[in-house]
């Protein structure tokens, strides 16, 4: 199953030396329920960052 996510990678190319996401990770990226949760988390992180940055 994992091979379909890797079939475009050739050995010893620059792409060969990094992480390649597999099916579950890719599914999570557009899973609406999970992404709604991430949406809240991203907004919280950015709010904290903004509050820390104003002087």
């Amino acid at each position, binding site marked *: 199953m994992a091979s379909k996510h890797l079939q475009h990678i050739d050995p010893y190319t620059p792409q060969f030396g990094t992480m390649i996401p597999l099916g579950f990770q890719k599914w999570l990226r557009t899973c609406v329920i999970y992404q709604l949760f991430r949406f809240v988390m991203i907004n919280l992180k950015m709010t904290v960052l903004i509050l820390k*940055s104003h002087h």
Partner: protein
Amino acid sequence: MARLVVMGGGVAGHTAATFAKKMLGSAHEVVVVTPNSNWNWIPSNIWVGVGGMSKEEVIFPLAPVYKKAGIDYRQAKAVAIHPEGKEGSDTPYIMIEYTDQTKPGQTEELTYDYLINATGPKLNFAATPGLGDANGLGEHTVSVCTADHAEHAAAELQKCIEKMKRGEKQTFLIGTGHGMCTCQGAAFEYIFNVEHTLKEAGVRDMAQIIFITNESFLGDFGMGGIHFNMGGFAMSSKVFAESLYAERGMDWILGAHVNKVEAGKVTYESLDGTMDEQTFDFAMLIPPFAGVGFKAFAKDGSDITATLFAPNGFMKVDANYNAGAYENWKPSDWPRTLQNPTYKNIFAAGIAFAPPHLISKPMSSPNGTPINPTPPRTGMPSAMMGKAVTMSIVDMIKGAPEPTHTACMAEMGAACVASAGKGLFNGTAAAMTVYPIVPDFETYPGTGRNLNGTTGELGLAAHWVKHILHFVFIWKAKLRPGWTLIPE
């Protein structure tokens, strides 16, 4: 009554002018000088450049907004600063040249009590032969730096899609068009949006997509790279970025100084000193930035441009410009108040201020050609600088002896949402937060940044954030109800 003149109506200038007017009311005068008639939400130009948005969705006319706010708007370009006034008058002024169609070319002296330089960059297409003409609409390449450029890019992209549908393979080359470019993020966003668009059009298998960059590693972003707290690891943005390119089957060329662009071909020098070529059918190459090229004159008419501006045309502020070699760099080199050290009533914000040095480690080829990204200072940092400078000036108008607010890139964070494809349910973007922007290796050994404040993730949620920000920031820029509550 004091007069504040703001040169530039982009993110930093518009933020500065609108907050200044809000804080000063009718007791003082705020003037904006900008050659543009429209405000442009530049981050969405990426979507215009692939046909995902129209030009009209990312721009709006400035004149009605400034009229409503009570801001004196001059559609003109500033050409010279006279910070000591002229013979017979101590009042400082700038010389402006109107671009307004009703009085094009007409010049005027505009006096000021306080001056903010927020002009943004000059898109220096001329730095690389063949990269573009004065308008950036090159013969051989496209750009997404302005809404007009992006509209042109979308039209050229569509032509390539039509060719691929007819069975003709195409090579796409996207990245930086010079060894001293900044704004790799825009090229990063554009290449992923092009890939997404080709996939949507059903022609992805007909395209070879190549990223060419002056970064020594993917994910440098002009900030020397970032480490994210991810899955129990302090993971480098190098791995994060490489993973994204590898996943989508895109190639990359690193450490490249593009020194010539011809029809269907770029020539570039690499960090190892070799010269190479890359052919293309479609190329979007970001130009390097320079200062807009002001002149400055003393009271006696002598040229004092070098007093106000660094050789690259950006304005000198309260930075340490004598930090020397990379090993000596410190966060304290970075400006805090953004006040000019010679003329205390002049400030710079956004891209217009001269950074003390790079953030990434300086690199050059054996031939002596510098090939390194220059510091990014667009978006959120620009707006924060614009507001901080304005708040200082407002306090100084009310009697404060010196600036009261700071916006130091070594003390602030940045949030960046980089689109990787547009779509309500199939879009993705990389949401990144970085704290601080300039790494502080004394406070945060190893990575230079606070891992609790430096994060990155790719997903649909980040795309939603980016799309919502499009509407929220245009709402804010139009000064619609509640605009002051929207943070920079």
